[in-house]
């Protein structure tokens, strides 16, 4: 019976000129289709269906300080892939048009990247079309591939770790992702290996009305290290696009994972139409003693951002870090922050959050620091700063602190400041334009976070901020 349904769907699948896209709507058969198109094993389909059944019983969360038009989950197409292509052996086989698009986005997906020491796994809509430098990574024993491939090639690892950090029951959007995730990145760093290059993935949402459900899993074995970069751009669209990604990080004993994001998705037009809704669940599990997970994010895009990259500090002496810059302008809304869950003894965490609101932008920091009863000598320091530009924007701070161990030391500092007329006058009197002055003040404000980014990303992030705040003053 099952086979019948699946094959029916495969035949009924409409191949359009440019891409294969499922008609909008979500039911079990859609999930079966996704799974079959990806040639997934049975256990993966079972996981998806279980998540779907659970999702059906869940309610969309409404506690965040964001407002948006209701999302019609049946108005979304859950699968889209660039023209069906055989597995590629080299870049020469990639559609030149796709390569041109990447060129426009400034992604040099070619041999030059090797010299720069960066491997790129580019995701165009939902299917990975090319993965570079697999070989030199393979020499080090590093696995860096698309999630679909990992499901087929490394089922044991995927089965062992997927869903162990963010189970499908975690939240509404994580459940949805677990049911329909399209593709994403899989990284495995073997014991004692320091990944020889920065791993980098560029996401791009391209198809109209296609939700993006990326799934990323990074596993760092004992004593290994990896730095992963994620950057995004998206073209202008009229309809709201939903993005609900799940990222899981697992750091075993003495392992270190650094995860950096620069996010610049379409924020919508002046009336707030057409922007991307970004509901993301990112979580790292410091499973081993002395493990270390560091999140750095620069968020300038999306109409709505709902995102709390978190660390579960299970191991003794484990370290969690969260460095964030979130910019909202126009009608953008962001409710973002982190969770640091201290379970292991002597676990430490640092939170540095910089929120910038301009025009009518609304920015909320929401952070939880929880110290469990067993977490002797846990330490947390939180620095949470808001910068306001103009008099119509908003900044909110919601720190939640739960401490169940008397030896814990938890510090929370918060400031709110404005780019003042005095500062602008001072800069302009010294010959700087207002825009230069603002970008200088903003970069000064964000410095603590930018210095956590890999060099070339820091430069990009600065430019991005300057561009996104253009015209926001005065």
């Amino acid at each position, binding site marked *: 019976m099952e086979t019948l349904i699946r094959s029916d769907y495969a035949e009924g699948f409409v191949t359009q000129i440019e891409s294969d896209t499922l008609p909008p709507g979500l039911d079990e058969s859609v999930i079966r289709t996704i799974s079959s198109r990806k040639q997934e094993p049975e256990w993966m389909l079972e996981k998806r269906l279980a998540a779907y059944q659970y999702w059906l019983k869940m309610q969309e969360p409404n506690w965040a300080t964001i407002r948006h038009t209701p999302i019609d989950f049946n108005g979304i197409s859950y699968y889209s892939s660039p023209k069906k292509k055989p597995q590629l052996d080299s870049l020469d086989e990639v559609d030149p048009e796709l390569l041109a698009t990447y060129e426009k986005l400034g992604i040099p997906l070619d041999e030059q990247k090797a010299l720069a020491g960066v491997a790129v796994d580019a995701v165009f809509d939902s299917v990975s079309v090319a993965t570079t430098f697999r070989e030199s990574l393979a020499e080090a024993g590093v696995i860096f591939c698309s999630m679909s491939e990992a499901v087929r090639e490394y089922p044991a690892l995927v089965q062992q770790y997927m869903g162990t950090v963010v189970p499908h029951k975690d939240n509404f959007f994580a459940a949805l992702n677990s049911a329909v995730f399209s593709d994403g990145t899989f990284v495995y760093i073997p014991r004692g290996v320091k990944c020889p290059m920065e791993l980098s993935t560029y996401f791009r949402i391209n198809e109209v009305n296609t939700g993006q459900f990326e799934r990323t899993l990074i596993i760092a074995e004992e004593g290994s290290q990896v730095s992963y970069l994620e950057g995004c751009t998206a073209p202008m669209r009229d309809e709201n696009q939903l993005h609900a990604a799940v990222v899981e990080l697992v750091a075993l004993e003495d392992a270190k994972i650094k995860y950096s994001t620069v996010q610049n998705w379409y924020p919508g037009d002046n009336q707030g139409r057409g922007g991307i809704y970004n509901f993301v669940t990112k979580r790292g599990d410091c499973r081993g003693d002395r493990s270390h997970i560091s999140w750095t994010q620069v968020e300038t895009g999306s109409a709505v951002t709902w995102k709390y990259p978190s660390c579960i500090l299970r191991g003794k002496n484990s370290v969690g870090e969260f460095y964030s810059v979130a910019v909202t302008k126009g009608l953008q809304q962001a409710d973002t922050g982190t969770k640091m869950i201290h379970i292991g003894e002597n676990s430490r965490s640092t939170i540095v959050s910089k929120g910038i609101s301009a025009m009518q932008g609304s920015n909320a920091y929401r952070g939880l620091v929880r110290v469990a009863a067993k977490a002797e000598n846990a330490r947390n320091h939180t620095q949470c700063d808001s910068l306001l530009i103009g008099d119509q924007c908003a900044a909110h701070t919601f720190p939640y602190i739960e401490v169940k161990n008397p030896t814990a030391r938890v510090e929370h500092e918060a400031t709110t400041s404005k780019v003042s007329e005095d500062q602008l006058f001072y800069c302009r009197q010294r010959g*700087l334009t207002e825009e230069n002055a603002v970008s200088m003040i903003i970069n000064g404000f964000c410095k603590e976070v930018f210095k956590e980014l890999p060099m070339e990303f820091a430069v990009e992030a600065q430019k991005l901020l300057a561009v996104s705040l253009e015209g926001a003053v005065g």
Partner: protein
Amino acid sequence: MLSIKNLCASVDGKAILNGINLEVYAGEVHAIMGPNGSGKSTLAHILSGRDGYTVSDGEVHYFGQNLLDLETEERAHSGVFLAMQYPVELPGVNNMTFLRESMNAIRKARGEAEIDAVSFMKQVRHRAKQVKLDEKLLKRSVNAGFSGGEKKRNEILQMMMLEPQLAILDETDSGLDIDALRTVADGVNLLRSPDRALIVVTHYQRLLDYIEPDFVHVLASGRIIRSGGKELALELEEKGYEWLQEGAAA
């Protein structure tokens, strides 16, 4: 160089300047004195392009162009510099970077090449020594956590680096001890040159012991009520402002 004719200005409908007339030629140092609230700082702000003032009458010409038509940064590009009474803090903005950006913005506007890093460093170190500004402060954020005296020295350092045509010092002496005052004055004196003019706004005569003005103007109720040579400042020191104000009212 600078010609102010019948300048009248107000803030929130309240008249502050009531017909200022002043001619400043290159090479001259003018001191503007007067009691609190006489409009000294307002004059300095209007000349340098601060928002929030309404000019209701009068004209200001600077090298033949209408100064009031220029944007704040354009005035800076054409050589107008204001050393502020309360220098602003710019947290996170490196002091040296700020200075270099400022120099380059001005150079660029004038069609000149940017200053190279080596000569900039050389110059800034040299000038910092002259105003006795601790080099460590060059590496900190602009004015952030500086003492009052350090802020003023930093202003003079910026002035020396930017080499303005017309420098306006707004109560640069306020809050300075005698040593700092002397250092700041020495810095200003180094900048005196035949093609540069200085307007020194001050409440006290003290600063003028060190920066010797060619002209002294007394401002009261938004008007220059008396102009004279440097001896006028000494007279004011002796008699205070009241005798002049009474004279003016009569």
